[in-house]
Each structure stands twice: as C-alpha cells, then as structure tokens.
C-alpha cells in the first residue's frame, strides 16, 4: 500500500496534465496563423510527450526528447523562420478558391484518421504477460544493446547525420553563389 493518502490520484492528475500539454501543444502547432507560435506549440507538445515517455518507464527518452526536439529541432526551425520570413501579409486581391469547403474537408480527413485509429486502439486489449520479461529497459541495457545488437544501425545513423549536415551545407551554399 502507498503511504501517502491520495498518491494514486496525484499520479493520475500529473498524467492528465502531461496529456493536456501534448494535446494543447499539437493544437497550437496546427491551428495558429503565425509560424512562430506554431513552433512554440511544437515545443509545448514535445514537453508533454517527454512526460508521456516518463510515464512509459523511460526517463532516458524523456531527456532525449527535451534535448533533441526542444533544444535542437525547434531552435533550428526558429532559425529557418528568421531567415525565410514565412509570415508575409496576404495580398489584398487574394480570393480563397474554396472558403468553406477546404477547411471542412481537411478537418474531416484529420478527424477521420483520429477517430478511426482511436476506435481501433480502444477495441483491443494490448497488454501481454511477456512484457518486460527479457530486459527492463534500463539505460545500462540500452547502452549494451546499442553497442552489440544494434551496432550497425547505430553507425549508420551517424553516417546519415554526417551526410545530412554536408547536404544541408551544400544546398544552402549553392543558392548563395547564384546571387
């Protein structure tokens, strides 16, 4: 038994807060007009996702989520926003081709995907008794697995990152030479 009286409900409240952070962040990222607010929404969503990873017994991935998504991806996108100025004012004579139908259709597609997959995932009991019988997923086990079982993909991903850095430099540089 727990010694603290309402600890179950406290954990449930923290879980609800992480889910709310994820959902609200995703909504901000998709629905706001200005791109910079959308980037902030992505950062909020990543923070909530880090909390969900923590609830899924992986504090290591929670830390990595904050480091990589908030610390690297969001900051890189903000640099792109600064360099490319995506928030140009819409011209006066701009007429939307389908002012009513287009938002409804995209909303229907998004809601359809969400409701369909949610109904599928609610209709089945996914828990198996074999979960966690081989390894409990500690950081030590992750390190050992990365250097033994997954050593080839581990090296390949460093190669992919190297090629991505070189490719990004080359693409951004050729545009500069043209002017």
């Amino acid at each position, binding site marked *: 038994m727990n010694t603290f009286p309402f600890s179950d409900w406290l954990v449930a409240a923290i*879980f609800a807060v992480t889910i709310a952070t994820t959902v609200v962040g995703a909504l901000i990222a998709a629905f706001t007009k200005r791109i910079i607010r959308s980037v902030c929404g992505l950062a909020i969503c990543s923070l909530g996702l880090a909390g969900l990873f923590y609830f899924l*017994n992986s504090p290591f991935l929670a830390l990595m989520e904050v480091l990589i998504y908030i610390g690297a991806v969001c900051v*890189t996108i903000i640099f792109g926003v600064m360099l490319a100025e995506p928030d140009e004012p819409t011209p006066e004579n701009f007429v939307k081709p389908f002012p009513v139908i287009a938002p409804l259709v995209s909303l229907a597609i998004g809601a359809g995907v969400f409701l369909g997959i949610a109904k599928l995932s609610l209709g089945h009991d996914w828990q198996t008794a074999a979960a966690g019988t081989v390894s409990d997923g500690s950081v030590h086990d992750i390190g050992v697995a990365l250097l033994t079982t997954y050593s080839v993909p581990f090296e390949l991903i460093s190669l992919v*990152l190297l090629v991505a850095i070189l490719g*990004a430099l080359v693409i*951004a540089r050729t*545009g500069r030479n*043209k002017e």
Partner: protein
Amino acid sequence: MNPAQLYSQPAAYLVVAAFLLGVGIFGLIRRRTLIGMLISGELIFAAASLNFMAFNRFAAPDQTVGQIAVLFIMGLAAAEVAIALSIIIAVYRNYRSISSKELNELKG
C-alpha cells in the same frame, strides 16, 4: 477501467498518438508555407514514436527495443529538419517566398 490507473492502460497512449497523427495530417493539408508543413510532419513523427513506446512498454519482452527505435526516429527527424530547412532557405533565395502556392515551376 479505473480512471486513476489510466497511465497503466496502453489505450490512453494510443489514443493520444492517434490524435497527434490526425492533427499532423490536418496541418499538413491546411498549412500554406513549407515551414508549417515541416512542423506538422514533426507531429506525425511524434505520434509514431509515442506508438513505439506504448507497445514497447506494454507488449515487448525486451524493453530496450522500442527505446532504441525511438532514438533512431529522433536522429532521422533531426537530419530531416536540417535538410528541409536548407532546402527551404534555398527556395526562399530563388522565389523570395516559401508559400507552397508560389512554387509552381520545376525549373526557375
């Protein structure tokens, strides 16, 4: 299902992941600029990694598998963002705009 034990139910995580996927697809359709579409793509990546982690926690005998898969997804997402932003900046230099409506020529 006890609401206080919701965090130990895989369906809760799967529904949140489905929501992220739906919002990401909605944003991918609705956004008019390339950076907005890139952000929606990141939401879809997040949905995939949440699904990996949920099934890893509740169904996998070896709990390191899903965590390593999500680590690789994060690495690929970082590489994708770097490439996409350099392409966006190159496009902006040529067109002075990154609105997806303006990008209608194959050879500038």
